């Protein structure tokens, strides 16, 4: 019997997800032992042509990380979809848009203008912009176009499973892959991780009082956190309650509050809005003026706080440019 075929690919991502795959360490050998890696551009010498040559549906599992920001991403994932039986969106960017999805707060034109003209480190008097097609010495070159917005993977192709995280933990990755390889197939659309929020597995959950009332909010650098007490009750925004568990509470154990990379739970339509809603519910300030003062002192950044990984996934998330 031939070994299952696995493809790995990256789109708009930082490379951390690839790093996380390598972090499987010795288990990577078990993986290579168990499967045939037929496509993994970052680690092995495969070209697009190689993929195109494969038969449709011949790959068993395609693991794709990164959001969709360039035409090339779109083409490649559509191709991978065609060639694969199972597609996994791997990591926050493929799952929810992730950090690159924060750029959706600005229209394309504004991003390009800043990056190529206005950024303080840029000198570009001729205002040259990357072009889709250009001719140099009679030779025509083509670049993939920068798309209007960043999209999570499932807005471009059909996705079977999700492995969340920025990046996903090696244990979760291993658990998901070994489950799929052993034929333990979850229902389509399943997000690996816990079915409950992080609080459930958080070692500090039992220090949380029944009632939470916050009189002040603080950012992690504004306070010395007591690492033996629920961070939220110390006034620091912890996305734990609104974030899927399954990460082993690594950030919490490392002394930092949860930033929400595992995304929302089943049934939550908008992680950021939900976060805003739960936080607003436990802030115990009646006076509007005092509220404003507190937010001022805090340097309130709702998109960065609540939508850090999920801005591209919400119901209302794209800022329109003029005339677009």
């Amino acid at each position, binding site marked *: 019997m031939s070994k299952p075929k696995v493809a790995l690919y990256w789109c708009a991502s930082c490379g951390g997800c690839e790093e996380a795959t390598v972090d499987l360490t010795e288990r990577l050998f078990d993986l290579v032992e168990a499967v045939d890696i037929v496509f993994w551009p970052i680690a092995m010498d495969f070209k697009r042509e190689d993929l195109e040559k494969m038969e449709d549906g011949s790959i068993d599992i395609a693991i794709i990380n990164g959001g969709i920001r360039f035409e090339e991403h779109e083409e490649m994932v559509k191709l991978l979809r065609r060639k694969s039986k199972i597609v996994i969106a791997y990591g926050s960017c493929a799952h929810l848009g992730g950090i690159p999805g924060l750029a959706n707060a600005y229209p394309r034109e504004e991003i390009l203008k800043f990056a190529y003209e206005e950024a303080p480190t840029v000198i570009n008097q001729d205002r040259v912009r990357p072009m889709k097609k250009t001719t140099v010495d009679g030779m025509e070159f083509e670049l993939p176009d920068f798309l209007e917005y960043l999209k999570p993977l499932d807005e471009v192709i059909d996705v079977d499973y999700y492995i969340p995280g920025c990046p996903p933990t090696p244990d979760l990755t291993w658990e998901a892959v070994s489950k799929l390889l052993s034929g333990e197939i979850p229902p389509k659309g399943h997000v690996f991780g816990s*079915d409950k929020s992080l*609080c459930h597995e958080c070692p500090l*959950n*039992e220090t949380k009082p*029944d009632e*939470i009332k916050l009189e002040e909010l603080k950012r992690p650098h504004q306070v010395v956190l007591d690492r033996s007490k629920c961070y939220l009750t110390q006034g620091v925004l912890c996305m734990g309650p609104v974030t899927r*568990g399954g990460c082993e509470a690594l950030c919490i154990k490392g002394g930092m509050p949860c930033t929400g990379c595992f995304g929302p739970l089943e*049934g939550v339509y908008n992680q950021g809005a*939900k976060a805003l809603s739960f936080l607003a519910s436990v802030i115990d300030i009646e006076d509007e003026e005092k509220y404003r003062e507190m937010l001022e002192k805090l340097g309130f950044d709702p998109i960065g706080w609540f939508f850090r990984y999920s801005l591209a996934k919400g119901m209302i998330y794209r800022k329109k440019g003029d005339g677009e």
Partner: protein
Amino acid sequence: MSSEEVKVEGACPTDEVRIGVYVCHCGLNIAGVINVKEVVEYAQKLPNVVSAKEYIFMCSAPGQDLIREDIKKCKLNRVVIAACGPEMHEPTFRAVLEEAGLNPYVLEMVSIREGSSWVHYEDPEAATEKAKDMVRMAVARARNLEPLEKMSGEVKQRALIVGGGIAGLASALDLAERGFEVHIVEKKPVLGGHAARMGQLNVEGRKVSGKDLVDYLVKKVKDNPNVHIYTNAEVTKVDGSIGNFTITVKLKPRYVNDKCTSCGKCVEVCPVTAPNEYEYGIGERKAIFLPFEGAYPNQYVIDPETCTFCGKCVEVCPEGAINLDEKEKEITLEVGGIILATGHDPYEPPVGEYGYGLSPKVITLHQLKRLLSEDGPTKGELVIDGKRPRNIVFISCVGSLGTTPNANQYCSRMCCSASLLEALHIKEKYPDAQVFFVHKDVRTYGKDENLYWKAIDNLVKFVRFEESPKVTVGKGEVKVEVEESTIQERLVIPADLVVLVTGMEPPKEIEELRSLFKVGCGGDGFLKEAHLKLNPVESLTGGIYLAGTATGPKSIAESIVAGSAAAAKAASLLSKDTIEVEPIVAVVDEDKCSGCGICVSICPYGAISLEKKEDGTRVSKVDPMLCQGCGTCGAACPSAAIQQNSYKDKQIIPQILAVFER
């Protein structure tokens, strides 16, 4: 994703759903603007709609018949009524469904009257389009409505009344006379609250004192076998919910039993003194004392805070009524309803505010009332610093109308009348006294208005201010400086006595009270009514009613009215054997709940608690009897683990999606 294919657990299979849509003309209220026929035709084409009809008044008997017959004929299992808002006729139509054999909760009312025809009467075409949108949304929601069963609980036909002041007594008496067993728990060692020490009152010119009213009520209450009185007692725990509360009451030791004949021998030998709180700090009392003459129970009491337990009183007591070893006791009461008549504290100005605390010549209205009372410390003689004052200046709105930083923002209602009554009292008793009434406003409203005119006739000098007056305390001299705002002149009034007309503030222990009974407080710190106008004596928590100044400043008459009203509300609960509660409550999915506790923190009714499971993790639990279905927890639940019956995501989300499905 369309509203029909929302991916939610347990959504009804669409092929089974049979919806009837009934569009009401409401006479011309709707049909005068909206093209009802067009809306009905539109509704007929919507998915799952098997019947759509119109009628001039759906709520009328023939209208109801039409729906009932249709339900049977078309085998409907969901009903949408496009008419008025649900406040008025939801119960009507729920009954219609029930009579036709349907569960009453598969009804959706959509208010095309308030939401469209009334507000868009200038644009009938747009109003018709909007009505169609609203009907489409209602159908999308109705598709996933579920049958619900009403829940019921037993009612213990007894009441707890917290506070034995005038409001508590009034409500206790009303309930007891209707045959209900009543338990009054009063924190102080005596009944009567502030009213018992309010001196004379304005009762249509007759001389009636607060004490007279208290005596009258106390007599009736203590003679009624249905009433159980616990003084020197405090509620320490409240369990259960509407109809079925278990109350733990701590009975503090009084150290003196009912053999006491109030002979007073113990007081003579008691070596310890303390300021007398029953005289608002005027004069002193001993550690063993009778709070005031004719108090109920008329029995001495030892204040353990000041008593040194020297035992001298025990030696002299001829009746052997004193037992210094008496211990605290605890009892539990099982009641169906609770009336909180927990009262107020008189506003206590901070030292230095208007010279208060800097000179014996600056006193509060409450202290003046004690000085002028015949049962007071001076037997009604107004003597200040050994002398009878001639120039007396009242400064009104101390602690009210935002005159000082600590003051309440609004009027305390009773103080203008109470102080003008005392001003007249002084004028009558000492005709040579000069009385100035320095005020921000005079609010002797209603039947007390005669006090104002009488004060003018009796030459009380009214001085109006906009900027708070200044009281300077010099060597034995007190002056009141005020910018008279009518004549626009600065006046300096030398005063032998300054009376600060103090208002009311929430009692110091209001926060404990609030969390103990799980009732809300308003921004002013007083307990909050469920609705200021519609439910002024009900709290937001079912089965807990509010009386007297617990909800804010009131006169004695108003407190009694509130006491009786709370009793009436409580009686309508207590007269039932069981109560039914709406099944539209929050429900927790334990498989999703992570025990984060957000819901517990925000539930305004204290209906949610965290329960520890065997594996040590926590899950939240909603008490359906306490839950009022406000939906706050469902909105805040970060895990979408809380869903509210009839307002589940699978019901709301399709409704929202349907907005865009034209």
